[in-house]
């Protein structure tokens, strides 16, 4: 390589490095300038826009109280929820497990209505990479189905198995306390349909609400208190053996679905049964 071509090459390299440096400086400046804007739009676009259905009702803290002594396991709440929220087949926003407790001859039956616990410290929100799930000012944990990309991170972050991936919308889904109803002054569909009056819904910030009064006057329990999530679904008469992980054998609805072939082609997870399941 002769001298002139070396000089040309050197100049070209300098030009490139200058360009690179200028580009990096411009990028850094751009990032710095964009930071306040990013912070402003960081939770969720609906929240930032002040949309009432995203922000919720300021000053309230919705909660549910379930009196297990009154639950008869009729599944009216399960059905009402499915109708109200158009929950796809094989998935549930609320459901009522049917449990037999104890060993023969000392056996009794219990029902344990389940739903999203709308925790004070929801672990599902913290892992969402897109701001698709957030907590309204009234404590309801919501999902933006137009933002969620269905990564499944929140599904595994929930200790209560409350979330699932909706196979139709291909986004995460769960109970929302029927915000479309409570924002209109109505009760959630499950509470409205509870024939035994086992489910009560109310504002924890209102000392005269039925939920606040019941919590004040009676011993209440929550599911999995050790998780630190501080759930806002309370139970009366929750047996200690149901509070955390249950011993026993899982059955039967998913198995029935598999047997019917309704979900078999897409089913990746099946229930282990019999001897295998006894290990855990």
């Amino acid at each position, binding site marked *: 390589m002769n001298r002139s071509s070396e000089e040309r090459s050197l100049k070209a390299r300098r030009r490139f490095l200058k360009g690179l440096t200028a580009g990096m400086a411009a990028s850094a400046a751009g990032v710095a300038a964009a930071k306040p804007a990013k912070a402003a739009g960081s939770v969720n676009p609906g929240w930032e826009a002040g949309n009432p259905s995203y922000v919720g009702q300021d000053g309230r803290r919705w909660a549910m109280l379930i009196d297990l002594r009154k639950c008869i396991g009729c599944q009216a709440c399960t059905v009402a929820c499915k109708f109200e929220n158009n929950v796809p087949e094989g998935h549930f926003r609320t459901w009522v*497990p049917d449990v037999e407790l104890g060993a023969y001859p000392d056996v009794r039956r219990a029902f344990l209505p389940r739903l999203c616990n709308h925790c004070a410290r929801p672990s599902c929100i913290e892992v969402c990479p897109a701001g*698709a799930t957030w907590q309204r000012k009234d404590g309801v944990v919501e999902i933006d189905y137009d933002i969620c990309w269905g*990564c*499944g991170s929140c599904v595994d972050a929930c200790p209560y*198995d409350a979330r699932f991936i909706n196979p139709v919308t291909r986004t995460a889904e769960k109970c929302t306390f029927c915000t479309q109803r409570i924002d209109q002054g109505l009760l959630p569909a499950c509470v409205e349909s509870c024939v035994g009056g086992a489910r009560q819904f109310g504002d924890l910030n209102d000392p005269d609400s039925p939920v606040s009064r019941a919590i004040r006057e009676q011993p209440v329990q929550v599911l999995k208190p050790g998780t630190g999530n501080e759930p806002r679904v309370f139970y009366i008469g929750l047996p200690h053996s149901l509070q955390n992980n249950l011993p026993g054998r899982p059955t039967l609805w998913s198995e029935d679905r598999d047997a019917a072939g309704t979900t078999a082609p897409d*089913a990746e997870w099946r*229930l282990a049964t019999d001897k295998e*399941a*006894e290990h855990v």
Partner: protein
Amino acid sequence: MFERSTLPMNELFNVVHERPFSLLFANYSVLLGVAGGIAILWAVNAWMGRRDTPGFRLAMPVAVSLVLAGFMNVLAEVQQPGRLIYGYIYGWVYADTSIIKYGITLLPLFLALCWWLMFQSLDPRALADGIARVPRPVRPVVRFMTLWSWRYRLLDVPFVGKAVLVALILLGLFAQAYSGIFLMNEHGVPLWNSPAQVILFVLTGLAGGAAVHVAVIPLLNALSTRRWMAPGRHYHWGMLGAVVLAGIVWYAWLWWIARFGDIANQRAAALLFGPYFSTIVWHTLVIGLALPFVILVFGGQRIAADVLASIGVLWGAYALRYLILIAGQALNRSGAGYLDFAPNEEVIWYTASDALIAVSLALLLASILPINSNVPVGAAKEV
């Protein structure tokens, strides 16, 4: 095992939601982990001055192939991949807890750096000659794709070169640790809420990276240059060290959860030491750890022995991720028992496709890049 008659009659009629992660998670975990290992070892080689060998020049194309195949798994697993853009726009208030926020920014950066270094590790003059042979209409595109690497070689610049290598090591470590941290943040699965799997993923990623340097890169070199290249001995010792440490961490962790874990971890231990015990023994202990260890220690550092150990290490790295993923999700949070994982056809199809993409891309890059050029470097050339 309890006798049936002494068991409580607990019978749960329950709803169980399907778990979101499948084989595809294990796939991208191992692909990115091994790519991170390759990149870290490449950076160490570059730092130590072990450059300008075909093996050095082939490492980055393999890393790029693995990262791209890993990304395909992510896109296949996410339900709405078109919405990934929202990760860059919204939800930044949770940047301290959502590892995906870092994944979507740093992992593409890792890919871009590996891509750039793939050309930086080539001889600039050979690269320039190669570009000159490309048809004129597409030449500007090729120049851009090489990031004009025939003109400069930043690795030769003392301070800048070292800074690039440090950046590569940090991003490689992140690529290895990412899926482990991801699982660690999943609060609903107590088995995963441990840094042990992050350490395990990093160690097995490093061992896997060394295994690729020992077994895959010489093979690629032989296919593209028709010459056999003996891998450096340092990979042998690196792989052995990583395997020993991974074995210690893996079994110490299992012992800890069985001995001191809370009720959820005890259930996980019951699963791992119950139905999954034979899988653990065969795939992680025998094939993934013990066999490579014995071969590496007593194999006399023969190439064939090291290649065999490498296959075991790669198998073990995958099996370990698969087991941790499955064992965590198998515990049913709705109640009793556990779920049984059976990969469906779609997942198997994606897995096979990704393996094909990784292999074919590595072969393509090895065949079109001038990896065999030993022309002294340092001179840039105008094309």
